[in-house]
């Protein structure tokens, strides 16, 4: 696993190295603070095809690609604006890194030609805060901006923006259309008969988190309006639809930083879960298609350490790693007796078993 901190440090952890009762994972390498990036890391991801490379985005306005073995920088891209989030497709043949930065357009960087490939303009705010490639369509991606919109893009098109997700579009009415299988849109994006078109919003705040469901037909978004929305992208009229899933009143999301929304792996007969790092420090676990709160993960009842990073692994037996604002990485595991976490009285917020805490901000790395 790789982790990147606001201190600009990058660490690589060996997840097979767990030994003994203390559950400490070994750090096998990394980039020391200030050596790689100058400011904090906003996002970090493995090269989608193997662990030979990884990609980091930073508030120092660059995206860097690294050789894992040599721990050396291989490419550096000057974005010219603070990078809020980045994503690379795991199914595409293209090697495009999509960047969401403090800049109104989405930047695409081609790793093959090591240069800027495309600029996707359409967002009306000052920043793009979240970005995710479709898991099923190699040329489609979704972005979320400070203009309160989620936009879908097909990068093959000259006029790339397919549609703006409209929170008021709940039964297939509304503006714009997306037809995933056709290169032609059903309705022109810019000409619409609905007068208040220019004010289409997906959220009443900055859209700072996105995750696609594995089938590429649904998208989950979150914004600083403290809402999580599930969008259906295959409504009968092939228009985006707000499915009106409501995640309840405990969602806290007021910071502009990109929220890592994480889904549990898809398994038969088990509802898929959404892990949401709430501003108050606990991680809310919801059934993603119903919005029902299943569990809250918190170290203590009165924790105020915000969770900044989230990632999970495993299919039968899920492990969730969360990074918080104090520099801890915490491992959460489902109780071994049940294949999935089951309901618990939310009045007693006890931590789950097998908690591992690693403080990577300063302590272990004197070795290298």
């Amino acid at each position, binding site marked *: 696993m790789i982790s990147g901190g606001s201190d600009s440090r990058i660490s690589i952890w060996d997840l097979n190295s767990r030994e003994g009762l203390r559950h400490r994972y070994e750090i096998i390498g990394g980039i020391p603070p200030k050596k790689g990036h100058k400011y904090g890391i906003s996002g970090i991801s493995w090269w989608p095809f193997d662990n030979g490379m990884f990609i980091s985005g930073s508030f120092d306005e660059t995206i860097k690609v690294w050789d894992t073995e040599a721990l050396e920088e291989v490419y550096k891209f000057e974005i010219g604006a603070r990078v809020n989030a980045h994503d690379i497709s795991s199914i595409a043949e293209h090697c495009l890194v999509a960047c969401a930065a403090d800049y109104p357009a989405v930047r695409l960087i081609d790793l093959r030609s090591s240069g800027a490939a495309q600029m996707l303009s359409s967002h009306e705010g000052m920043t793009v805060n979240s970005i995710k490639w479709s898991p099923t369509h190699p040329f489609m991606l979704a972005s979320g901006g400070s203009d309160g919109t989620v936009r879908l893009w097909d990068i093959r098109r000259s006029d790339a923006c397919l549609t703006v997700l409209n929170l*008021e579009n*709940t*039964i297939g009415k509304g503006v714009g259309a997306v037809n995933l299988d056709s290169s032609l849109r059903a309705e022109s994006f810019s000409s619409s008969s*609905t*007068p*208040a078109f220019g*004010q289409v919003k997906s959220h*009443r705040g900055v859209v700072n988190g996105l995750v696609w469901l594995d089938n590429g037909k649904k998208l989950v978004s979150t914004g600083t*309006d*403290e809402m999580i929305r599930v969008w259906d992208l295959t409504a009968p009229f092939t228009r985006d639809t707000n499915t*009106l*899933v*409501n*995640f*309840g*009143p*405990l*969602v*806290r999301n*007021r910071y502009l930083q990109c929220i890592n929304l994480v889904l549990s792996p898809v398994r038969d007969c088990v509802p898929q879960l959404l892990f949401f790092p709430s*501003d*108050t420090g606990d991680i809310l676990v919801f059934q993603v298609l*119903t*919005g*029902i709160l299943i569990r809250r993960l918190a170290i203590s009842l*009165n924790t*105020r350490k915000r969770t900044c990073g989230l990632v999970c692994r495993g299919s039968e037996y899920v492990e969730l790693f969360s990074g918080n604002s104090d520099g801890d990485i915490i491992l959460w595991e489902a109780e071994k007796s049940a294949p999935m976490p089951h309901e618990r*009285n939310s*009045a007693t917020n006890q931590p789950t078993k097998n908690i591992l805490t690693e403080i990577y901000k300063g302590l272990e790395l004197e070795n290298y």
Partner: protein
Amino acid sequence: MAELSDITIGIKTVLSRMWDAVPDTGTRLNRDGIAELLRFRKSIPPIVMISHLHALFPSDPTFIERELQHVAEEGLVRKMVVNQNAGDMVIESKDYFRILHDMRQSDKVSNIETLDKFEDLLKSKPAVTRLAKEDLAEASITEEEGIRDLLNIGFLVLSGIPGVYLISIPNVGSFLKLAFRTRKWVVNMLGKTKWKEMLEKVVHERWDANVKTHWREFRGITFEWVMMEVKGGGWCEPFGTPGGRGWKLTGKKE
């Protein structure tokens, strides 16, 4: 078309529990004060916050969201989103149109036909919460005459976006001010404690002890109404203790 829905039942339930009966003594109000209080209560439209509905049905917020959309589209209720920070509101359509109708008696409207056109427009778009001036123009409600009237009497408010108006109802401001102030009272009360939490019975005692504010400022609104709003709106959450239910701030900020 079913007239009954969990939403309309919910609305009626919340409304029926909104006001404390005014006692003969103990309010520290004189006769004029009490008369004014009763007038105030009557002037407030029968609105319910959506957070109240969420408090009534806490285990399935998606159900509320979808059912609300459904009954809005059926024309049974009108959703109103006048102020994002305050929260979304809902009113039974029959009450909304009754109030619109009663406006005919008012001398603030230069042309009564505007009210008819507005009613037709709203009924043709049962689920919308805002209108663009093009929508209003299509219904022959002009900026100079119709829109200005509707803004004056309070059925439209400015949205901050030129050319876009929010559907509203007269005296919504008084309602929202009441909701805002009572919510703030609870949040401040819990905020004073170390762990931002308090037993419900202690909160209730403090609420009851606050006689002057309770009747003068809060107009005798019930403790229950206020707690439902803060719970459903995500400002506080309940938890169990051996000493009874407690309430804790969720950290939600304005």
